[in-house]
């Protein structure tokens, strides 16, 4: 490796890195990113909370005004993304395929992030 040649080559070429906040990072469509439960399908069976390897799913009570016929126990999963390892075990064990998966990976935050808001939005 000749350092003169490499230096010249690098001065004349573009940087290899992606200027992240300005340009988006190319990410696969099926990357295991942020996922949340869809309340139109979720039956509140608690299987995802039992099977979660990092114990980051807690089952919470639905709001008072929301009465769902297919969810007699009135429970829904709330994922704590800060402890989630994104293994998608919950997505795969769900008997009604209630989880919505995205490739969203930008989850860093100074506060705890939960899936509660996204899940309750699915009520419409």
């Amino acid at each position, binding site marked *: *490796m000749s*350092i003169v040649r*490499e230096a010249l080559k690098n001065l004349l070429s573009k940087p*290899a890195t992606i200027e992240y906040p300005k340009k988006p990072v190319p*990410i*696969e469509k*099926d*990357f*295991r990113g942020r996922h949340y439960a869809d309340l139109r399908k979720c039956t509140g069976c608690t299987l995802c909370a039992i*099977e979660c*390897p*990092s114990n980051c799913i807690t089952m919470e009570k639905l709001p008072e005004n929301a009465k769902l016929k297919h969810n007699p126990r009135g429970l829904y999963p709330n994922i704590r993304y800060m402890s989630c*390892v*994104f*293994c*998608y*075990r919950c997505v*795969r*064990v769900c*008997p009604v395929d209630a989880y919505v998966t995205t490739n969203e990976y930008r989850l860093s935050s100074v506060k705890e992030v939960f899936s509660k808001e996204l899940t309750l939005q699915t009520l419409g």
Partner: protein
Amino acid sequence: MENGMVEKATSIIKIPVTLEIPIGPQHPALHEPVLLKIYADGEEVVGVEIGTGYNHRGIEKLLENNTFYKGKFIASRVCGICNAVHENCFVRAVEYLVGMKPSPRAEYLRVLVMELERLHSHMLINAIMAEIIGFDTLFMYIMRDRELVMKAKEIVAGNRVSADFHMFNGVRRDIDDVKRDKLIDLLRRVEPRLKYYRKLFEDDPTISKRLTEIGVLKAKDVTSYGMLGPVLRGSGIKSDARAEDRYDAYNEIPFNVVVRGEGDSLARMLVRWDEALESLEMCKYILEHLPSGPAAVDERKLPRTFPAGESFARVEAPRGELTYYIQHAGGNKPYRVKVRTPSLNNIINSGFSYLGHSVADVPVILVSYDPCISCMERAIIVDLKNKVEKRATLREIAMKEVRL
């Protein structure tokens, strides 16, 4: 002197000054928390004590307390770099217990993920070696090209590092033709770069002068100290769990076991480059000859409990042979899981190889063993009666030199 006569000295008194130099656990040259206590006489290393225990997480106990399905994800987090081989070994040990046999396509895909992992692991340690010897340009170049392999792994498994790809009786995702073409294109772009780096490590005077004859291990040493993986193959011993056991699809995929006889740090790095090229060829072969049929399993239909028994599986990790032993008394949790990782043998037993070299060579020799400290944290003895912790090597425990 007074009479003008010069008295000749009859003896010289030499006071040996042995300096104790701690290298690590926090050290710019070491990327992992391990303590090498070096005793140096001048510049020469006269003794080495290897201290570990900075990264102990109690994974084996954690595996006992969790179900097999949770344990699969915990096992893959023993080590970040070689997560797929840990996963594969655990999954195969459980499959032997139950008598499951995954489909041929699933076996091929497992091998694909493991070989991609070997590829990026070998690139990483070669990049770190370049950085340690002060060749930062090469470090940057290798890390840039490693991104292509990480992208390939992201396409197959859904994540750059933590694959979480295996499941009992198969794999968790399948690949289609679009993904296959993307992967072949990525591998085609990696190949010339790998060949270039391989040539560079062989020809470049900076690298060869720094690594030749450093940390020489003879074939007798590596076998008597039980070293594994590229360290073993760099000293002329042909041993590879992939070729010996032919697990998963390794019986159908052609590959060569790379062996070099020199036994020095350069030979170990070149073994890794050659293995990386072999892995690349294997990945290409897999993508071109992928059998049709189902691969992904429905995780909802897998059994909740497994029959009692014990099983043992071994796998060739990027760093050497990795073994899992599972003892199961029935139910959904294992009674005992024993993990034996290659770094445990390669690092703890390697103290003799530093002797006689200069202090500056110590990081080079350590990196040439490809240390993976998170894998090897095992033996801390906790005396519950007196509430004291003490550290001991596994040999001391086996020879009953340490009272448990």
